[in-house]
């Protein structure tokens, strides 16, 4: 274990009550429940990063700062800047031209962990809307093969829009259920990212009221979802219990998550890496999924925390289930630690 991840994971945790409402069920995992819940009520800052595939990122970074002098650099991603609330970079010419991209800070981290290099072959199994895909392409210098797969056909347009706007040429977009990749296919990837579908509890800060049409002329805003999001002011929304946080949903989504992770591991060469990430806090969708992987097939590696961004280690047990010991190497972003969304990430080394 390195960096700022505290030593030792929490011990055995009490089983969460089925009746537990919303985010309070994570009280046993959080160091400061009030701070956690308060952070979930605040708008989520966004990050703009200079796209190195489209011009000199130093020049683009200066353009970001010229647009928004209050922007502050993200210390652990080159030419990325945290924007103050109310800034709408989706209206900037730089966004339209693909010189910049906008996303949430914590979601930079999984792409950073992939560690792709030019010429690598990378599988992004759940790619839409393409934020992390674009970051991986930037790491690759747009050379090699980046398969950007998305099962949900309705989200393909967002993915294609982003990759094309950012000038990514090393990506090939596919539209299959990642769990249905053929068995026995060659282990022909160096890395894989499984940014799995989940209950999305960590995104409560992103929920927004739709703004009035941006052209001020009325009518439906037909912009792609990514553009609408980038130019929409944020409004915090109280976390609420929904169908996506019921035990039944968690059980069903867990099966999908395990299937995706197993398939990704099966397609990566020995020695390659697989990043598993979700935007939920739920151990059922995180550590429990990692626990389903045979330790003889893939090991969970320690992570080095990004400078200034404290991470919390994976938990050893939840709901009466004790997980494989190396789940403590996984990490959570809690929103009150670094003013981000909630996020979970683990890096597995294929054996």
């Amino acid at each position: 274990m390195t960096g700022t991840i505290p030593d030792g994971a929490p011990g055995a945790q009490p089983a969460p009550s089925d009746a537990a409402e919303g985010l309070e069920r994570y009280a046993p995992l959080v160091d400061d429940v009030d701070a956690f819940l308060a952070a979930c009520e605040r708008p989520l800052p966004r990050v703009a990063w200079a796209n190195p595939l489209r011009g000199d990122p130093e020049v683009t970074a200066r353009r970001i700062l010229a647009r928004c002098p209050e922007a502050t650099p993200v210390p652990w991603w080159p030419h990325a800047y945290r924007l103050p609330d109310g800034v709408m970079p989706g209206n900037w010419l730089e966004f339209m031209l693909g010189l910049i991209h906008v996303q949430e800070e914590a979601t930079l981290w999984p792409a950073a962990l992939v560690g792709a290099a030019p010429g690598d072959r990378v599988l992004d199994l759940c790619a839409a809307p393409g934020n992390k895909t674009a970051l991986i392409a930037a790491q690759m210098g747009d050379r090699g093969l980046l398969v950007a797969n998305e099962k949900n056909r309705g989200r393909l347009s967002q993915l294609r829009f982003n990759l094309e706007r950012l000038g990514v040429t090393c990506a090939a977009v596919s539209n299959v259920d990642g769990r249905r990749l053929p068995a026995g296919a060659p282990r022909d990837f160096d890395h894989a990212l499984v940014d799995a579908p989940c209950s999305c509890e960590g995104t409560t800060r992103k929920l927004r009221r739709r703004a009035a049409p941006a052209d001020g002329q009325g009518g439906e805003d037909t912009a792609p979802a990514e553009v609408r999001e980038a130019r929409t002011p944020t409004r915090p929304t109280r976390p609420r219990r929904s169908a996506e946080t019921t035990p039944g949903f968690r059980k069903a989504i867990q099966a999908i998550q395990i299937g995706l992770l197993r398939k990704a591991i099966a397609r990566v060469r020995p020695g390659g890496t697989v990043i598993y990430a979700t935007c939920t806090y739920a151990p059922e969708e995180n550590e429990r999924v990692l626990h389903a992987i045979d330790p003889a097939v893939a090991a969970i590696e320690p992570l080095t925390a990004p400078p200034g961004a404290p991470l919390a280690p994976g938990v050893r047990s939840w709901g009466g289930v004790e997980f494989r010991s190396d789940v403590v190497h996984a990490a959570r972003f809690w929103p009150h630690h670094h003013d981000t969304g909630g996020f979970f990430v683990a890096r597995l080394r294929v054996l």
Partner: protein
Amino acid sequence: MRVSESFELHPGADALLAWIGEHFGVPLAVFAGHRVWRKIPSATLWIAAAGVEPVAGLPYEVVGIRLQRNDASFGQVSNAFVRRFLNGATRHVLDLDGDALERFLVGDPGALEPAPRNGYYVVRAAGEALGRGRVHDGVLHSELPKEERRSARAAAAG
């Protein structure tokens, strides 16, 4: 070689890239490390990094970025292609600023003095390729996607 059932390497790629290089005045080295694929049956052309190749069990919807809507040996290159590859154009390029730039971005036609010859142009501002423009009878017509024109109008409105 085919990428899945949907794409094949475009047999006319060399000729097309040579035409584009000549027409817009960019060296062919700009396209080095890329290959041109033709989608079947639509015949749209796509340009992708040389590392893009077939993968078992993953039929592709898209490879790289769209080059043009048909497989003609000369033609109407996409805005994405213009931005990615034609920033350094030296021919058939219009450098705009001020009102002319504003009109182009929001999609309003604008007369240019002196009037360029009819045809397709790379439109640039501050050294950055914005996209494709079409000149007809001395008037520049923006060929930016409708949504981008809306965004530009929204941004101009503050």
